[in-house]
Each structure stands twice: as C-alpha cells, then as structure tokens.
C-alpha cells in the first residue's frame, strides 16, 4: 500500500444488545493532524475511542495504524504502539500518590525503550510531567493521594499519563468536562504544545470554542452514525448538524 495515512479506520460498527452504538464509521488521519469528534450525548463517541484503543472489540470494521491492522488487539498492545487515550470518567489509582500514578505507564515496554526511564529516575520524570500539567510542585500536590485530589486534577492526571507514554496519537475523551474555566485555560496550551511537537491529537469535546483552537478537521456523530465531516466552519454550517443538535423540528 502506498498509504500515507497514519491512523485509519474503516466501517467500524458496534452494538450493545439492541443498541447500535456505532455504525459504519470511517475516517483517515495523517500524522500531525488533529481531529475533533462531536455529537450529542450517547452518540457513540466514547465507543469509537474504545474501539480504536482496543477496550471494546468491534462487530465489524478495521483499524489501521501506520499501515498495519490493529483491530481487536489488546489495549496495552495498542498503547505500546503509541496510541494513548484519556478516559471520560477519570480512572486514577486512588490509593496511590498522584506521581506514582504516572510511574505505571513509565514502566511500560514502550517507555522503557526511551532513555531516562530507569528506576529511581522515574520519580523525577513523573513529578516533572505532573508539573507540566499544572500540579503545583511547591505545595506538594504531586505527592497527594489521588483520591484526595479534585476532579479537575484527575482529568489532568489522565493527560499526564498519555504524555508519559510518549504516544504519537493522543485521544482525549472530553478532557475538559469537569474542569474549571481556569483549568481549561491552562490545559489548552499543553495540548497545543503537544500538537506543535508533531503529535496527532483526537479530541472529543463539548466545549466547541476550545475545540476549534486545536483541531483542523471535525467529525460529527449522531446515533452512532457519522453525519458530517470537514473543516470546523463547513461542518458547523451544515444543516444535518444543526438538526442533530437542535432537534429536527422542520
């Protein structure tokens, strides 16, 4: 294949019992591009992320990464290939101090191949990473146990995990939901910086203003179907999207 596509999915479908959570969704993403996915609640956005990252197996359809098929591979295998994700409901290790949360991805085979992730150095790397996502080192926030942290911090902990993996594709599932305005404002530059570093960012977001600062193309899902695709301006102008969001009264 002469394929220059980086992350490509074709015809992904998944239903849970009778509910068709996702049907026949495809897209194609080049390295360094960034994609936004929007859609009403329950439209299948999280399911799409789960399918790409291997947490759920698709009923049909395929996922390709760097030209190789990764459909149905285990989540950790996919993470090690370089696709990292955050969870919509932050999944922290509640009994561990925040920085220890980051040590776990630092032990993954992927990170072990990079220099500077040896035992003992990991603590420092983890705390540095947390500082980057805004855990104040001076007031010892990285040392607090995760369960004592406010929700916004947990979401940023998710982001830090992706950064620790040094993933090439970072999928953010409603990262900003549950964050305060100031947290969003301070997190946005981090994502923009990741983009500048050449990472491919896939962002699911209800906050459109922030989303449009990051992404240059957009997909809209509704009832598991892709109803629009294109640049943000095009997509937001489309009738189908308006109908999906406002309800199709006419």
């Amino acid at each position, binding site marked *: 294949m002469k394929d220059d596509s980086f992350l490509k999915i074709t015809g992904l479908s998944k239903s*849970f019992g009778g509910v068709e959570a996702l049907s026949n969704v495809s897209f194609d993403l080049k390295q360094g591009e960034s994609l936004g996915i929007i859609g009403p609640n329950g439209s299948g956005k999280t399911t799409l992320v*789960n399918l790409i990252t291997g*947490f*759920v*197996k698709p009923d049909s359809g395929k996922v390709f990464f760097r030209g190789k098929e990764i459909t149905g591979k285990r989540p950790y295998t996919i993470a090690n290939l370089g696709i990292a994700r955050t969870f919509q409901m932050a999944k922290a290790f509640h009994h561990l101090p925040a920085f220890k949360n980051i040590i776990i991805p630092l032990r993954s085979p992927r990170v072990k191949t990079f220099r500077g992730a040896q035992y003992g150095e990991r603590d420092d790397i983890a705390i540095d990473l947390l500082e980057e996502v805004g855990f104040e080192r001076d007031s010892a926030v990285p040392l607090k146990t995760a369960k004592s942290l406010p929700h916004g911090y947990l979401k940023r902990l998710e982001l830090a995990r992706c950064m620790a993996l040094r993933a090439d594709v970072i999928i953010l599932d409603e990262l900003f939901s549950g964050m305060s305005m100031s947290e969003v404002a301070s997190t946005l530059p981090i994502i923009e910086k990741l983009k500048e570093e050449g990472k491919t960012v896939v962002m699911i977001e209800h906050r459109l203003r922030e989303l449009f600062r990051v992404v240059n193309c957009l997909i809209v899902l509704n009832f598991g179907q892709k109803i629009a695709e294109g640049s943000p301006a095009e997509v937001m102008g489309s009738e189908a999207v308006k109908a999906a969001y406002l309800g199709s009264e006419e």
Partner: protein
Amino acid sequence: MAGMLIYGLINSIIFALITIGFTLTFGISGIANFAHGAFYVAGAYISWHLLNSLGFPYPLAIAISVLVTGFFGAILYRFVLFRVRGVILSEVIATFGLGIGFLELFRCLGLTGYDYKLPKFVDGSLELLGVYVDYQRLIIIVLGAVLLLFLWFFTHHTKTGLAFRAIAQDEHTALNFGVESDRTAMLSLGMGGALAAIAAIAIMPLSLIAVEEGHHILILALAVGIVGGMESTMGVIVASLIFGLSQIIVATYLSPNYTMIVMLAAIILILLIRPSGLFGKFKELEERI
C-alpha cells in the same frame, strides 16, 4: 439407553434446581452468594427439625422452612452485605465466612450421622419406557419444570420481576426510573435462599442431610454457573443438561468416580474458550473485566 436418558434428565434437573437460586441472586445483585450451600443445608435441616422435633405435618414444615430460609437470605443482605456493598472482597468474604460458619454450626449442633433423612413425598415408583423411576424423582422433574416456568413468568410479567431485570441490565438507569436497588437486592437474596431450600427439600430425600452436602452443592452450582454463564437462565438449563447427561454417560461407560474430572475439564475448557460461559454476557465482561 432409555434409562440413561431418563436418569440423565433427572440429573440435569437436579443440577438446575441446585443452581437456579445462586444464579438468580448473582444475576440481579451481582453478589456471588458463597453461603448458597449453607442455605441449601439449612432448608433441609430446618424442615427435618420441624418434622421430627416439633412434629409439624410435612407440608407445613416445608412451607415454613422455605420461608425461614428465604428470610435468612434477606437478613444476610440487610445486616451484612448492605454494609459492604460494592466491595467485592468484603462481599465474598462475608458470604463465604457465613456459609462455612453456619455449616459448621449445624455440625456442632449435631448434624452428623444417619438420623438426618427427609422422608420422600410419596413412596413407590413407576415404570417409564421400561425403566423404574420413583415418584420422588418424578416430582423433582415436575418441580424443576414448574420452577423454571414460574421464574420466567415472574421476571417477565410481574412488577418486582421486571424491576429485577431492569437492575440486572443497567443499575444506573434503573435507579433513575425509581427502582430501589437495595430492596431489589434484598429480595433477590431472599428468593435465592428460598429456592435453595426448595431444591434441598426436593432432593435431600434421595440421600442424607449432611454438612458436606453444603460444600458439594456450592461447587456444583459454581460449576454450572461458570459453564452456563452466570446471569443467564438459559445457560443454567444448558449447562445442567451437559453435566447431567455427561455424568450418567461417564458413570455408565467409565466409572462414577470420573464425573468430577469431567466437571473440572468442562470448567477449564469453557474458561479457555468462552470465559463468561456459554450464555454469559461475554462483551460486557470483557469491558468490565
């Protein structure tokens, strides 16, 4: 051949009867009731006492012991499981500990030896396709069929039953629609206990009431549940048929001793091929792990 089929069928129904209470509780509340074996023995033990120590008439003794055991189930939820709900470790240890505690308690209270035997409902036997089948076993067949039908009717057509199914499918949504999760879970444990007692009273007249029977029954219920898929009634039926028939076949052609090996092999095989059992919710499991 006909004998093998008939006895295989009876065996299967016994398996199903033993398991149904366990899987009902699990399917609705997500609680694996390791005290199931204790409920089973308790059902028989209580009715034996009502019958022999207090001189109750048999039908009354049966009714009371079923109710009492069901009540125990509800109590177990209300006073123990309620407090540790959601912590799997604690749920398992609590039911496991209570199960063993009560079984050993029965032993200490004197449940050993050959005295403890429940009478058959009706004596005598019947010739069926050239095989003699006693009435007790026929009753078990009928009872099994009736119970399965009843359960189906209950979960599909009564309000409580529908609430059961709602909780089993999606606890959060069910809660939003006003189903009380705790009350439902309590009921499910109560029903699980009552079903264990019914099974015990029907099956125990074929053998002695013994403490070991409690552990034995728990293993069988676990085996059937694992192979059939925990939450599914269909799974229970199919797995019971598999075990019931294969047990008779193995016993006839090899030796009765090998039935346990078949069981172990079936468990391991199923876990390797379809970890959530034949009819279990495979996808769900995989996501929740």
